[in-house]
């Protein structure tokens, strides 16, 4: 199994996707796969109603507005290293930018315009690493993750982002 296809890696990638952009049709479809949905409901029971229904445009809009409030405009749970890890935040961003520039990852389309210190990018890179690399990367770049997930849990008003906060705790 490729290192980025382990169950742990894929869960990190799921969290990355949920944080990289608004929930779209393909993402909700992945979450609503019966087996997946069942597990997600166990992790965060409040997502059940959202996984049981067919999403209409209002559902997408509500999630998008919440995404913007949490992460984009005057964000209450900023998703960037620079908001938590002031010292060396440019170093973190620089490291990721360097990796991306070197063609290390072929980024999914909607990850391409994220700031280099964005949590989704960091999680994506993290999901590809194993062993010591993985531990080293986390301590260098993601030490602020508990702060972020705690913050997210407190601030968010949408069950799916509560779910993200839960997942981040074990990533």
């Amino acid at each position, binding site marked *: 199994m490729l290192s980025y296809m382990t169950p742990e890696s*894929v869960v990190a990638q799921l969290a990355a996707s949920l944080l990289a952009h608004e929930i779209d049709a393909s993402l909700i479809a992945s979450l609503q796969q019966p087996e997946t949905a069942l597990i997600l409901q166990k992790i965060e029971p409040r997502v059940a109603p959202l996984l049981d229904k067919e999403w209409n445009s209002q559902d997408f809009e509500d999630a998008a507005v919440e995404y913007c409030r949490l992460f984009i405009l005057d964000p209450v749970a900023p998703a960037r290293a620079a908001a938590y890890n002031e010292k060396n935040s440019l170093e973190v961003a620089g490291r990721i930018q360097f990796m991306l520039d070197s063609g290390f990852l072929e980024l999914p389309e909607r990850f391409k315009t994220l700031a280099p210190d964005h949590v989704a990018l960091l999680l994506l890179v993290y999901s590809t690493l194993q062993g010591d690399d993985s531990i080293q990367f986390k301590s260098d770049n993601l030490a602020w993750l508990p702060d972020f997930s705690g913050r997210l849990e407190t601030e968010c008003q949408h069950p799916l982002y509560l779910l993200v906060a839960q997942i981040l705790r074990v990533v």
Partner: protein
Amino acid sequence: MSDLTRRSILKLGSALIAGGFSPLRVSAQNATFGKSFGVLGRLDYSKAKATPTICFACTNHCGVIGWVQDGLVRKIDGNPLDPNTEGNLCSKAQGMISYTYYPERILYPLRRVGKRGEGKWKRITWDEAYTELAEKMRPLRENGTPEEFVFHYGRDKTKGYTKHFTNAFGTPHRLNRRSICSSNRRAPLMSFYGRDFEWETQDLSNTKYVINWGGNPYEAYQGGLFMAHRLQNARVDHGAKLVTFEVRPSATASKSDEFYTVMPGTDGAVAFAMIHTILKEGLEDKEFWNRWANLPLDELRKSVKDYTPEWAEKKSGVPAADIKRIAIEFAKAAPACCTMSNRGSAKHYNGMQSDRAIRTLDVLVGNVGKPGGYCLSSLRGWSGKYGQEGLPNLKLPEPKASDPKPWGIGEGFDEVAFKKLPKKVRDRVNNFPDKWRKKYFGELATPSEYPLAWHWYQMRVGQLVYPYIKQGRQKVSVYMSFTLGAAFGYPEANAAREVLKDEKLIPFHVAIDIGYGEQAALADMILPEATSLERWDYHSTNCYGLVPYTGIRQPLVDPQGESKSIQVILRELAHKIGGGMEKHFTYKDDESLYRDWYKELPISWEEFKRRGIWQEKDRPKDYELYERLLTDGELAGTNFKAGKLADGALVEKDGKAVGIIKDGKAVRGFPTPNRVINVYDEIFPEAATAVGLPLSDGNASPLATWHEVPEHVDLPADRFIFSTFKWNVHTQGRSGHWKYSAEIIHTNPIFMHPETGKALGLVEGDEVEVSVYRPTGFTYRAGEKGVMGSFKNHVRFLKGMHKRVVMCSHHVGHFEHGIVGESKTSETSPAEGKSSKLADQRLKDGVWWAKKRGGIGGGVHINDALPINPAPLIGGQNWYDNVCSIEKV
């Protein structure tokens, strides 16, 4: 982690894999990942790449070097090739890194979801943004009402690109904030010299004596950094003397050899007393005056007869003996001496005339254009054509769009819109002489009450934009604000916000900016702009080395997120609007555009980018430009025939004077219509008559005069002048969220003299309420009385304050702009993971000076309490006239 969760995660992962979830492709290089990535990051100058560009942190636009490592700009240093900075820079340059990488920067186009101002937004695509915007703008153009599109900028240094857009659209409404800043200061230069040159360019490297009225080049001032190092060198290394008249111990005042506190609005009185003294002592340069001033010296002598130093002492508080001595020292240092003035003298009801008095001093001692003296750059054209001398013809290479047609009678007159204006306004415009009526573009662009704001060139009266929209003087359908902070920084900012909130008055507001400030918070759509480290600009300004130059702002990194340069935004929008607009925007990318813009430069594009700066080598300095002989080329097609024109006659071409005969020779003279210095100018009484300003008002005088600021006459003992100032680490309202700047200055205590405090029964640190009164002069809403507004803050004593002045800075007290700008702490604490000690200094928990962390907080916003107070005729905001009362809280 509990086993349960652990198992859930494993199961979740397996389920996702089974379901085919995989957002990721990883290249083969994954295998090469190792510790090498782990050590990257520290700034390493042997690896970082240096690229020159132009700073955008304030209005100076210094040549700088940006160091890029790992795709990020990590440090700014000075560019030693920049002849203005000579390699120097200030703290604000580093602010570019702060505002490019701060975690709350706007990186995506956004559309309002809830009510305007409610703060609910969602991300949209650029295509959605352009489509909606074009659908709103296109009909205006098609239906012949393009003026209902209003473009309003705070800082635009694209050198014509935004104007190209508004012209192509057909609107005259490219509004600015000149009046907020400098129009009272530019008007005297326009009158005296025919150009404002972006100020005089004193030859400070070679000067021996400088008298400074309320200028603060060591902290702020357009050109300040260029001046500060030259003046400090002249002072410390060559013994030049700097005398400053100020109301507070500014950095400039503190480094001055002599510093006098002066009653606000009396700078002109001091200048007049100096003119009086110089004439009395016979120290004037008669030859220069007679050759170049448009007024007989005796007329000047008569006009200053009563302006004695003793009289000036009574008005200003500056001892008569010092005024006399300084005047004599100044005149004796001529021509290596110069005046300096800025808002301190100009932002008053009488500021335009005070600055004319100060400008007269230089003419009187004949230092104009001389080494060490009061020089004028060739910026804005000297011998007829527009454009800086010493530079090749550099212009925006796009197919030119014609200027919008004036609203003057006849051509292109928008009768419907005009008829909607109040009768008083229509009458005024109809009675204007042709020279103004032909430049009239409606009340927002060319407010008829303030004809000098647009007679010379368009300075606008920004603080009246919102009241005029409210009064219905101009219908607005789409309002586009660009790096504008009016909702925070304009006087009566609350009134501006009310208009911005009103969807009937402004049906659609699109804000283009890099940060979510007070202005963007009241928009319907926000478009993220690339920062100055991510985009191109043409740069040219006056050079304090007196040899013109140009520099290029170039991107050091790609725009972050989905942000785009203003040029790209306007170009793509023009194409979306279509209808012929797209024909004016032919370039596909910015670099090609700027390469062609600089086509005529005698060095290659690559070499220009490498150096960042170009200057003609071995060009003589811009001394005495007015004495230069007209060249054969300049004489071609004129009325000049050798020996045929008398001394003083104008050399004319197509009915326009391009030179003047002196000693039988055709020289350039000054770029005024009569090619001499207009110490006397009929434009002031003409404009006064046109708008109904009584000729008894000092502003109406053709010759400089001093008249007391109306609301300062017989100022009661319990009233004070409230004034504001800029700190060196900040730049207008744009820097509150730059973390290192805000860390140094985040509060704005009310400064006052210890004796003032004592008389008010105050001790340092006491909280007071400052109530600001409405102005009483002939101005907007004249006649309204009483308190405009109040604010509270603590007091701090300084011996260098004028005893009748209280003062605080206007940069801080943001109510938008994020964690740093608002000095916020988090509203709620994270559920866990917060080890109190470690998290203490993290940005997201708030800055150390935030009130919730026991700090002093982020200062007080004062602009709601300051009245809109445009100076008569010119419309410059009289920021420093405000009368206030103070009460202990």
